[in-house]
């Protein structure tokens, strides 16, 4: 199955693009000096040999800001992706397998949070944690609100898997609920869960950027969204200072696009119905 993945040109493209963003985040510091606290020049200085991306409205080197911001965005994506995938999977797989009252309860809970817009919850929560809004807290809040569709999809898969013969056999052999779920149901969902994780990570990165654009970004770190927020707030657009917002815009788009491509190409490989 894995060799099938690497034969898909779409998957390889996505992987290469995503690798590119990782390269920017972790190899650039070897080449450039990273310092987001020092003012190296005047406001909105255009790109030069010394500062490849110029400076922001405070005169801070934008290459540094982008590297730190990109790392922060990737971190938010990863943490929120892990949280959302785990919460969604646990709720979905348990409800789907158990059925009955517990399933009804968990399903109602999922649907409840599915219809209440997560952006609303995010706005309300973020605005209440004015002081201690750290990068990690934002990631946790995002993960805690976007797990719903994962739970719904996983539940559907689990409830169809539970009537398979091997699950019945395991039950006869005396496996408990936990054993059946981890040994006999989850392994069948692994490829699917990985796809979900990729998508949740992309969602996390985009959501953090949206929140930052609303002025609800992290207080303790730069992120790609906050670079954009600062640029828009400080009239980089009207000043024509393209270096203050274009690179961050392209980076966010690149990350989201590469993750989407990875996700859809995996769908094509794992779901034979979609294959040509």
């Amino acid at each position, binding site marked *: 199955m894995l060799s099938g993945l690497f034969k898909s040109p779409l998957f390889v493209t996505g992987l290469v693009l995503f690798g590119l963003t990782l390269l920017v985040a972790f190899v650039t510091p070897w080449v450039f000096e990273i310092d987001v606290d020092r003012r190296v020049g005047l406001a909105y200085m255009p790109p030069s040999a010394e500062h490849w991306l110029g400076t922001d409205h405070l005169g801070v080197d934008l290459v540094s800001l982008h590297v730190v911001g990109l790392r922060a965005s990737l971190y938010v994506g990863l943490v929120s992706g892990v949280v959302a995938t785990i919460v969604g999977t646990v709720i979905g797989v348990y409800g789907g397998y158990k059925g009955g009252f517990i399933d009804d309860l968990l399903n109602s809970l999922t649907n409840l949070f599915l219809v209440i*817009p997560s952006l609303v919850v995010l706005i309300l929560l973020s*605005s*209440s944690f004015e002081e201690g809004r750290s990068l990690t807290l934002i990631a946790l809040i995002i993960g805690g609100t976007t797990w719903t569709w994962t739970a719904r999809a996983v539940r559907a898969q689990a409830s169809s898997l539970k009537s398979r013969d091997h699950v019945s056999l395991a039950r006869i052999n005396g496996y408990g609920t936990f054993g059946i779920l981890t040994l006999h149901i989850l392994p069948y969902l692994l490829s699917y869960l990985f796809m979900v994780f990729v998508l949740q990570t992309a969602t996390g990165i985009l959501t953090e*950027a949206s929140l930052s654009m*609303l002025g609800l970004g992290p207080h303790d770190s730069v992120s790609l969204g906050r670079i954009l927020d600062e640029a828009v707030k400080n009239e980089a*657009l009207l000043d024509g200072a*393209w270096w203050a917002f274009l690179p961050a815009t392209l980076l966010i788009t690149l990350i*989201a696009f590469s993750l989407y491509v990875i996700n859809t190409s995996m769908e094509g490989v794992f779901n034979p119905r979609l294959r040509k």
Partner: protein
Amino acid sequence: MQSFLENHPRLRHSLGRALWYLLTFVVAIAVNFFLPRLGEQSPIDTLIARAGESLDTATAREQEAAYLKEFGLVEVDAQGNIIRQPDGHPVRTSLGAQFVRYLSLSLQGDLGTSILQYPKSVNEIIRAAVPWTIALQLPAIVLGWLCGNLLGALAAYRRGFFDKGLYPLALLMSAVPAFCAGILLVFLFSIELEWFPAVGGYDDSRLVGFTWDFIASAAHYYVLPFLSIFCITLGHQAIGMRSMCIYELGTDYIKYSKVLGIQESKILMYMFRNAMLPQLTGLGLALGAMIGGALITEMIFSYPGLGMTILTAIQGNDYPLITGTTLLITVTVLLANFTVDLLIGFLDPRVAHGQREKR
């Protein structure tokens, strides 16, 4: 009554759904009320602290009293005076009582008073913003949905060159986050080329009204935000429709129809009808999410809609306005979901059948 409902499974189903959504609505109101009060400081505390800053004590006290009464935070006697403890501090109402008051007011459609634009009510501010949001987004979403579906179906059916060129493009278009698309459009068309204005909904020097002058100005400002929402909707829809159609094309009924030699256009119609249903759900949900959906797009363009309203509210910690707009967003999403639920029951024979089976 019992037997009447049993004989009308659709009605029974609809009533059940209505009840469920009502419950969800109450939970949403609770979320709206309690989430902002989760933090260390109550929003009203911050507010009073700020209100008192620039005033001398007597006026500050009066203002504080007005706020406390306005937002139902203290016990009030029959004459409308604040009940005070012996040391002069007002008696605070319990959180539960505040919630009951908030719930009853919200159900009556009263969203409270704005803090930043003080005597103005939240309802008033929202009423001024909503038409802009609808005028911007309704056409963009509907047109994007139509074009996206047509292109998606074509890509799935024709495959080959059409699909190879269009699909990655649509994928790229749907991956560009709304705010990035907005920033790119502003940069390209209003800063570099100077074809369209960058920010606002109309030229400030014009009077707002139904004059030719004003409409022309508004139309000029309309192009960029419209394009940015239209393109993203189109990308999303094209991708969804393409995979739906590819799935339908692989099913037995299409293969059988082909073997039977049924006209190609007719087979296409069969496929389109079946692939359309989930897309229709998508349209309903997109329209419901409309009010909250393009907050960021409106923000980038400083469009005078709900997005700007919520942004200024967040920046100024205007809690009544924040919770008012979020409640409105939630209600529209709930209504859209409910409508789609009911519509699907009527349109999809399988779901309708399921409702009849259940009784």
